[in-house]
């Protein structure tokens, strides 16, 4: 009886999380992912649902965020942020925490990291080549960091906390997603999610996403949000891609998912949205995820 009650509550939360948001004038255009979805459903007697477009909404991405993605030397990149950090620039502090997060696995033990990359390659798992390539990419970009720089997991949280205190919304979102919110309480959590959604900041969407999946399942404060399932976690990440986050095949997002998480595409040319629709979402779940992303973007899907 208790198990059935839990199922009923979870089902209600899942259903409520699919309520569409406010309707805006913008319409979603369909893009290249359609081809991937069509291939996926070949042979089925049910027409494939159009997948969410990978085309980005036109918008301004801060130069320091673009530079983070392009830089081959993140040590030099972080040094270039120091003047802004000293001036209390919240976005610069947030980007420093992103460098810490990206490079931590390598920096705390460079020799061991390099050796383990070879071990992973020798394991000959299905994901071994991609995971080894991602780890090598991290090693190249973070090569000038040493253990004495203390890019430990604890320091990642310290840097995020400093950035949040300076006013960085992505840092605040990252802290909540990692279970260390700036403030406790359901009211704060609900307000933060609302602020992130209204900001249309791709980094904030991406930082919040891990906390909006199964981790928030059953939280009453999230019952009217896109939250509570693995699909909702991915929806926030897909929305971040649409808002301008670099989600390309060699992006820090794809590299981090693979090097740190073992979530690697076997196709080196595949970007994050394509990878998600290819590997994480069953064909019959595409409409569900599309509706979630539309809700987060405040858009209404036009059906052909």
């Amino acid at each position, binding site marked *: 009886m*208790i198990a059935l009650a839990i199922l009923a509550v979870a089902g209600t939360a899942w259903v409520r999380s699919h309520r569409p948001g406010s309707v805006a004038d913008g319409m979603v255009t369909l893009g290249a992912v359609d081809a991937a979805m069509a291939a996926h459903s070949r042979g089925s007697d049910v027409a494939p649902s159009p997948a969410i477009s990978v085309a980005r909404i036109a918008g301004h991405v801060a130069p320091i965020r673009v530079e983070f993605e392009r830089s081959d030397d993140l040590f030099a990149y972080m040094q270039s942020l120091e003047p802004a950090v000293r001036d209390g620039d919240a976005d610069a502090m947030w980007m420093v925490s992103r460098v810490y997060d990206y490079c931590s696995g390598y920096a705390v*033990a460079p020799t061991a990291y390099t050796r383990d990359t070879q071990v992973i390659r020798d394991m000959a798992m299905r994901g071994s080549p991609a995971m080894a390539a991602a780890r090598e990419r991290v090693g190249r970009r973070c090569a000038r960091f040493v253990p004495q720089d203390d890019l430990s997991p604890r320091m*990642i949280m310290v840097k995020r906390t400093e950035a949040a205190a300076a006013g960085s919304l992505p840092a605040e979102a990252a802290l909540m997603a990692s279970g260390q919110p700036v403030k406790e309480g359901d009211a704060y959590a609900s307000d933060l999610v609302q602020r992130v959604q209204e900001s249309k900041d791709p980094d904030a969407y991406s930082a919040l996403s*891990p906390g909006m*999946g199964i981790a928030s*399942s059953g939280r009453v404060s999230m019952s009217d949000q896109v939250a509570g399932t*693995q699909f909702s976690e991915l929806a926030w990440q897909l929305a971040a891609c649409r808002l301008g986050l670099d989600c390309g095949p060699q992006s820090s997002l794809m590299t981090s998912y693979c090097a740190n998480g073992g979530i*690697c595409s076997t196709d080196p040319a595949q970007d994050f949205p394509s990878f998600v629709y290819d590997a994480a979402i069953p064909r019959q779940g595409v409409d569900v995820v599309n509706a979630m992303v539309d809700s987060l973007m405040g858009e209404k899907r036009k059906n052909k």
Partner: protein
Amino acid sequence: MKSLKFGDKARRYFWVLLFATYSVSAAGVVIDVLGDEYRQLSQVAVTTVDSSEAVRMSGASQVAAVYRASSGAPFSTLPPGSTFRVVWPDGSSEYVMIVSPSSSAGVDPIPGSAQAAPAAEVASDATADASPGLGAR
């Protein structure tokens, strides 16, 4: 209200109990790092529950990554919010929670869940290639 006969009650509670048992057992992922997939990873080879939190977080994160990479369904394997029990080479173990699959700080040890190695456990794998950095800690 019509009272149920014993047989009906037994059938009803059998299915509830079966579902509850399945839910508990399905949630219990245990990763033993002495397995072939993990034993050569230097970042976990000398880790125990007495290692520093940073070492255990890094090790558990790497273990989770390899587990996902070999699963065939990486997105749905150990998603954020899930927990698993890691058994370190010396037999000690602890539960950790997945916070983020893409972050270097993506795993949190669950306080109070650490268990020392059983007294009769054999000593840790002497052939593992340990990092000098980790050994110095």
